[in-house]
């Protein structure tokens, strides 16, 4: 009689090939979906919520961010009011008849700071043709 000396264990083999395919698909999905934040956006900016709004016209927009402490940020850099006016002059000259300014002001900032930016845009030597406020849609 044959006496078995070793207990035969059945090993379970896991096919990793399919899982690698799935993981690569997930990686591709996240790499495509992830958007690198634009320099125009200011970290921590809370925009007002509105019902009537439209998609931002990307063509030729100059974005002026007004933070909650009232400071102006253009292109990721803090600017003073005279510097903002200089930027607007250069921008308007480079975009005749289509200079548009988008003011992304924090909802908590006092109106006096936004008014300064609006007045800068309204200077007669700066030909700004369109002004709009950045906002978020109200979830209905």
């Amino acid at each position, binding site marked *: 009689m044959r006496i078995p000396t070793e207990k035969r264990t059945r090993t379970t083999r896991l096919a*990793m090939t399919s*899982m*690698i395919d799935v*993981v*690569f698909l*997930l*990686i591709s999905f*996240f*790499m495509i*979906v*992830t958007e690198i934040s634009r320099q125009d956006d200011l970290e921590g900016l809370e*925009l*007002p919520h*509105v*019902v*009537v*709004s*439209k*998609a*931002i*016209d990307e063509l030729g927009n100059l974005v002026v961010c*007004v933070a909650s402490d009232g400071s102006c940020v253009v292109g990721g850099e803090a600017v003073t009011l005279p510097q903002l006016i200089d930027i607007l002059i250069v921008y308007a000259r480079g975009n005749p008849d289509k200079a548009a300014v*988008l*003011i*992304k*002001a*924090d*909802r*908590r*900032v*006092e*109106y*006096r*700071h*936004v*008014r300064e930016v*609006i*007045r800068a*845009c*309204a*200077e*007669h030597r700066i030909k*700004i*043709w*369109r*002004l*709009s*406020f*950045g*906002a*978020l*849609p109200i979830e209905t």
Partner: protein
Amino acid sequence: MKPLGDRKRTVAPLVELSLTPMIDVVFLLLIFFMVGMRFRVDDRELAAPLPRAGPPPTVQTPPLPEIWISLHVQEGTRPNPQPRIVIDQLPVTTWAQAHGVLARLAQMPGAAETYRVIIAPDDDVPHDWVVTTLDHLHRTGYTHIAFKQ
């Protein structure tokens, strides 16, 4: 000499590619993207009136009838400010009331197209209130909107 069948053939060793570390790297990348990714709502824009500075136009047009909307902070409501909105000398304290007043005014024939609405916020009101006022005006159909100079 050994018979041909007894000679051991030299076989090139097979190159084995171990996939285990690659799976670890892939999982790390996946976790990085899952943690680092943030979903956000796309920003939108609301058209704002652009005050025109400079000399008045040569062609004189008849002045439009005006509706003044002034925005104030209710006294004693800091640090959580509450609005006090005065529409054509009629004070209201909620946005729903303001919207109702504007909608009733807009129901007058041709009012929304011919009336000029001037928004006069105090310096210390939050920007949110100004944008909300603009939003209500757009919703009720007013086309001539301006900020107080």
